[in-house]
């Protein structure tokens, strides 16, 4: 990797602000993610993690601030630029959002046909390859309603990967899953990280964050109030908000 690509973030958000219903939801958030990094967003419910992630691919239009993809500023008024941003930035949702009327394979191939203008045949082949990668090639013909939550989320991952994104945003990808299904999805994401995928992920999975995050960003009330490497934020005895938050999560889990 040469010096220049090393120094240009894949995705950079500068001073993002957003109000909804007259209430400030995000204030002055900045973040740069470099190739192969995994940023982890944590924070209590309502902190603004989902809103922030959706600002990063303009599913929600921020009121202030700017986005740069590989150093190029995205102008929000240009619809073509927004679509190309979304094509290059993948997104995984908490509740999967698979297209309910399409099979797993069609879910993965449809954007290849509609957006990347691939032939149906090539798109189907590519979809099969991506499903294979997440261990679901034998489920290719099934509809979302016929899949388990973990399988649905893996199809969603395959759908995002098929677009060859430069960065993937993951919004609590395991929060809607039964505990026994969390592992298979985390394994798929771990596999991506190992392959050098750049990711920004909101999650409450502490062990996962500790093992894989290059940086943890702790959000509260729409602001990043703490950030750092997991080793420092989660060091034994560290008096950080992050540490306290996770300690409480663990306590809650063992209580029920």
């Amino acid at each position, binding site marked *: 990797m040469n010096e220049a690509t090393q120094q240009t973030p894949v995705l950079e958000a500068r001073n993002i602000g957003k109000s909804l219903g007259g209430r400030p939801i995000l204030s002055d958030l900045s973040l740069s993610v470099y190739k192969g990094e995994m940023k982890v967003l944590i924070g209590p419910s309502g902190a603004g993690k989902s809103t922030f992630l959706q600002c990063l691919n303009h599913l929600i239009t921020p009121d202030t601030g700017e986005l740069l993809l590989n150093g190029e500023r995205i102008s929000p008024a240009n619809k073509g630029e927004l679509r190309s941003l979304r094509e290059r930035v993948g*997104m995984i949702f908490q509740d999967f959002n698979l297209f309910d009327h399409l099979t797993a394979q069609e879910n993965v191939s449809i954007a290849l046909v509609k957006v990347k203008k691939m032939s149906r045949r090539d798109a189907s082949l590519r979809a099969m390859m991506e499903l294979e990668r997440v261990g679901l090639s034998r489920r290719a013909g099934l509809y979302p309603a016929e899949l388990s939550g973990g399988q649905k989320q893996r199809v969603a991952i395959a759908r995002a990967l098929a677009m060859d994104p430069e960065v993937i945003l993951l919004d609590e990808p395991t929060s809607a899953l039964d505990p026994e299904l969390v592992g298979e999805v985390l394994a798929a994401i771990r596999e991506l990280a190992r392959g050098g995928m750049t990711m920004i992920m909101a999650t409450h999975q502490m062990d996962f964050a500790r093992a894989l995050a290059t940086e943890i960003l702790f959000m509260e009330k729409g602001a990043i109030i703490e950030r750092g490497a997991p080793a420092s934020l989660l060091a034994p005895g560290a008096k950080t908000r992050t540490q306290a938050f996770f300690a409480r999560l663990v306590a809650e889990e063992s209580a029920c």
Partner: protein
Amino acid sequence: MQESILTICEAMPWILEGALITIGTVAAAMLLGLFLGVPMAIGQIYGNAATRGVIALYVWFFRGVPILVLLYLFYFGLVYQLNPLEFSLFGMQCSISLALSPFAASCIVLGLTSAAYQSQIFRGAINSLPSGQLKAARALGMRDFEAIASIILPQALRLSIPGWSNEYSILLKDSALVSVLGAMELMARTKAVATSTAEYTAFYVSAALLYFLITWIGLRGLRYAEKNFRIPGYSHL
């Protein structure tokens, strides 16, 4: 008694032909309503304020005025009285013929009315889909019209079939009204024969049975479509 059976048998082919005209009218109106209703629903949900306002006004008008009034207004007030429509454009005398058969006028009025109702069926169906469907499509870089055409509508139309069945049976009954324009469909023919033979009971019972039969066949067809298009694993889609 024998005589009346004979009269009925003689008149039946002519009445059945009227039933075919009724079916044609309803089919044309349903299709016109579909082709106008779908874009109207989309416009009402995704359109700008002006678009939404115009569509709301249209729906409000057609839901608020009785079909009978619309039929008279359209046929006598527009097609008959203003025909041919003459005006001058850039100094040229133009003349547009508004001449329409009662059948065509009926199809148009019923179709425009049905569009108002159908648009609300589709609007409800689209709104009942989780917002994440459109979000996911956009997140993949799809244009809004692509997302609507290939993600939203295929699901919404499935959900619309029960409402559509309802609209079909209402439209079939409303189609009896077009006899007032002189469209010789099932109702008009039944009335003509019943009056001239004074066999009121027999002919109106036969008309009732025919309407019932057409409703039943149509509803069976739509029920079949509903089952046929159902997505595996879903009870409601």
